[in-house]
């Protein structure tokens, strides 16, 4: 593979020519706005749309009464109302929507919809929701989901521990902050169906969900879902598609709905805040014997993939380590806060922060080097997976650890500046790819020769920015020995693509590779057979190459000419469908293919302000072969900086169910001035005989960054952090508590 090929979507992106779905317009298009709830928890007494209807330019106003099918959405359970009828359960709940001749008229109309509420008490913390006298957010109470895992007997295990660390960790509600907010256009078609031009991470799933809501057959709904200006999991669930679709059907006009940033903040899903309490014990050699984990996730009022995310966190509670006794108890709790849902890392980032902090604290208590403690407890190549299931053999865990250890030994730091302390931290992670055992995780693809004589490679994936188009191009060229000018790529359109499953769970690269492996031989053979008939050359002498079919070094037929000489019926189309590989053991949600990250972070901590400045972030990734170098690097660098934000900047705070940060003026994202020196090492080696090809790297670069940064802070100051994003005032208080002040600048703890 050339690996450094430029992305096929590059030219259109750097010139601004790429039409995003939110950039599109259609003749006679109307504009829509959604009225969201005025309260985080209330009963709706009345909805009156009369004053809004009177406004010139208003073409349609819809509420719960206008939903012909199921008034709910949710990838697994449709429990989030399209429009609330009796009760609103968070500040982003939708109550009504308007289509009008302009955005301004729609905005004005929304203000003129009169809704009266009876305000209910707000459950803004899982602890409140779990209290005995708490109002119930659904009939069966306030627990959305529970998941546990047990191995051995932790109570017995702790009896043999000489060092025990117990801590509660708090991780924040991170916002995806994709640059393109949700939206697009829904166009009514002549046959009574619709075309939905809106971004999503699984077009066929949107088609299914919309079919249920609109009471339309799936075949009447075409989803054009690509390209997108970012998603990171945030556009996996439905967002504004139902409103534009209902309004387009009602008005029989194209309807555009593009949320403003403020509207996006209010309505979009966020990363699950979690409180994770862990007790971990080891013997005097540092061997961990018992690990007792309790996870409480604030999932907001509706499910989306909350249960699956909790499953993932529970699965990864012991990460890449093998502990004798493990007990994990996870609870996903309903609240009146933001809906928490899918976000790059999928519960892994939260649990890894807690787990890796435990390993570091334990190392200190045992009096060991944290790396040595990790190595002692690390999984081996043929060990079972974290749920005691069989997994694909891997040396990734030890490979990434060795890489960061080597780098740590080479690091040289500038001498401490006045009032500045420096430190280095290391953390690691193991991350499952695909949806896991027992989950519908079908994949597939198609190769064909288009009428223009191009090799059309088609997948039901979406280009969200991750570079799946570059991966498809690179792998197709490698599989068929053609070049980029011979290929067209078709994705993100339910009318034109096969089922490939979701563009999530780090599965895209892996599935494209598997699909091409399955299709390439048949496709090549069939093309060569046709070429043999046309050219009278022996079929065994023919092969595919740049521009056409070759006999040795000589091109005997172009793809175009081949296509022209074959009838449409005889044209070569090769399709495949298969499932993402899962563990043979019946372990619900258990993964089979895992990737690994080793992270080294270096920080400077300002003793006067408590500010943390990350100066170097290095990631070693074990995920098999690199398909596209720029894409791979970009995923890890970008994921790393996103998690730097998670570690020291980003928290979508809420108070009494209201957002505290309405836009980017208060929700701080990393800018170019926050970026440390970044380095990425790809460890491509896989055990001999591995048949699973390159793994996806969409998530792994985000998972272990936070604990590396907090360990680096500990290295600098001797302070343990149990809550992110790290608050400078916590650091200042800790400095003061230790007796060091800026006028009496002394080493705080001698720990180096």
């Amino acid at each position, binding site marked *: 593979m050339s690996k450094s090929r430029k992305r096929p979507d590059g030219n259109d992106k750097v010139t*601004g*020519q790429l039409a995003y779905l939110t950039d599109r317009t259609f003749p006679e298009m109307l504009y829509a706005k959604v009225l969201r709830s005025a309260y985080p928890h209330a009963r709706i007494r009345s909805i009156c749309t009369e004053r809004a209807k009177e406004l010139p330019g208003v073409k349609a106003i819809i509420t719960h009464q206008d939903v012909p099918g199921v008034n709910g959405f949710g990838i697994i359970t449709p429990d989030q109302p399209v429009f609330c009828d009796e009760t609103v359960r968070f500040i982003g709940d939708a109550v009504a929507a308007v289509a009008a001749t302009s955005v301004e008229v729609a905005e004005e109309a929304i203000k003129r919809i009169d809704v009266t509420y009876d305000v209910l008490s707000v459950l803004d913390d899982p602890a409140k929701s779990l209290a005995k006298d708490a109002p119930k957010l659904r009939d069966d109470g306030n627990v959305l989901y529970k998941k546990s895992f047990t191995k051995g007997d932790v109570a017995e295990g702790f009896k043999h521990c000489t060092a025990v660390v117990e801590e509660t960790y708090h991780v924040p509600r991170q916002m995806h902050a994709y*640059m393109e907010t949700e939206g697009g256009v829904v166009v009514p078609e002549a046959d009574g169906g619709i075309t939905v031009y809106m971004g999503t991470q699984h077009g066929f799933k949107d088609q299914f969900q919309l079919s249920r809501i609109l009471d339309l057959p799936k075949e009447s709904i075409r989803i054009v879902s690509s390209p997108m200006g970012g998603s990171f999991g945030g556009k996996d669930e439905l967002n504004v598609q139902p409103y534009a679709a209902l309004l387009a059907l009602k008005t029989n006009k194209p309807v555009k709905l593009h949320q403003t940033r403020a509207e996006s903040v209010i309505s979009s899903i966020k990363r699950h805040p979690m409180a994770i309490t862990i007790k971990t014990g080891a013997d005097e050699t540092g061997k961990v014997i018992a690990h007792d984990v309790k996870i409480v996730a604030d999932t907001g009022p509706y499910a989306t993939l909350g249960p699956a995310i909790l499953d993932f966190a529970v699965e990864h509670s012991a990460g890449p380590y093998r502990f004798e006794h493990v007990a994990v108890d996870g609870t996903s709790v309903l609240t009146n806060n933001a809906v928490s849902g899918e976000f790059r890392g999928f519960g892994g980032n939260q649990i890894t922060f807690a787990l890796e902090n435990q390993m570091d604290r334990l190392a200190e208590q045992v009096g060991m080097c944290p790396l040595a403690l990790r190595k002692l407890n690390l999984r081996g190549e043929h060990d079972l997976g974290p749920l005691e299931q069989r997994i694909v053999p891997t040396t990734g865990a030890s490979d990434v650890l060795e890489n960061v250890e080597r780098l740590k030994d080479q690091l040289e730091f500038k001498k401490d500046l006045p009032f500045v302390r420096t430190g280095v931290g290391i953390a690691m992670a193991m991350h499952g790819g695909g949806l896991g055992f027992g989950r519908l995780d079908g994949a597939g693809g198609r190769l064909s020769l288009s009428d223009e004589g191009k090799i059309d490679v088609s997948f039901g994936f979406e280009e969200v920015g991750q570079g799946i188009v570059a991966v498809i191009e690179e792998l197709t060229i490698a599989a068929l020995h053609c070049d980029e000018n011979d290929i067209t790529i078709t994705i993100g359109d339910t009318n034109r693509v096969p089922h490939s499953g979701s563009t999530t769970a780090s599965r895209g690269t892996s599935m494209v590779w598997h699909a091409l492996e399955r299709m390439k031989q048949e496709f090549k053979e069939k093309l060569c057979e046709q070429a043999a008939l046309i050219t009278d050359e022996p079929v065994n002498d023919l092969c595919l190459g740049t521009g056409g079919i070759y006999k040795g070094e000589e091109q005997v037929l172009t793809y175009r000419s081949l296509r022209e000489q074959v009838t449409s019926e005889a044209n070569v189309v090769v399709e495949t469908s298969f499932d993402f590989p899962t563990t043979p053991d019946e372990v619900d949600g258990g993964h089979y293919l895992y990737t690994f990250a080793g992270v080294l972070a270096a920080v400077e901590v300002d003793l006067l302000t408590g500010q943390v400045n990350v100066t170097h972030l290095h990631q070693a990734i074990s995920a098999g072969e690199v398909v596209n170098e720029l894409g791979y*690097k970009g995923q890890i660098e970008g994921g790393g900086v996103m998690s730097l934000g998670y570690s020291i900047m980003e928290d979508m705070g809420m108070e009494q169910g209201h957002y505290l940060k309405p836009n980017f003026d208060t929700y701080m994202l990393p800018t170019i001035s926050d970026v440390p020196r970044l380095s990425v090492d790809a460890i491509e080696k896989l055990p001999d005989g591995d048949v699973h090809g390159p793994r996806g790297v969409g998530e792994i670069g985000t998972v272990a960054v936070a604990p590396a940064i907090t360990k680096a802070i500990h290295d600098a100051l001797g302070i343990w952090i149990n809550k992110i994003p790290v608050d400078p005032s916590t650091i200042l208080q800790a400095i003061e508590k230790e007796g060091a002040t800026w006028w009496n600048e002394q080493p705080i703890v001698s720990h180096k």
Partner: protein
Amino acid sequence: MVERATDCKPQMISMTLNGERVSIQANETDRLTDVLRHGEPSLTGTKLSCGIGRCGACSVLVNGELVNSCLLMAYQVEGASVTTIEGVGKGSLDPIQIAFMEEGGFQCGYCTPGMVMAVKALLLENPEPNDEQIVEGLSGNICRCTGYEGIKRAVRAAIRKQN
């Protein structure tokens, strides 16, 4: 002109847009972004993301200076020269654009037009900025995908290319 609910008076605004003299109808309340994207020019390369001047996705050049077009009213560019992403690399790509492609300076591409405009403004003012100046020049433009490393590589490459 963007359709409005209220009775604001549309007016003609004359400007030089990407090198061509144009007159565009705009309402008094239209932002420059609105007119560029939704008005007659239909130049959707300029993006709107935060709408409050914090992310730089809507960056354009007005008389050679970098501005957030979401913070500028359309009437304020009367008589000015406005350059959008569509005006960069017309005919053949600008070295900045080539560098963004070669160095992985973009992923989803939504911040890219604004980012390219910011680099353009930076290099117009200072053809050989050092790393610190690059950071300062691009600190008003948010990218959520790349972690900025690819963008830094691209700017350094663009500097080399133009020499």
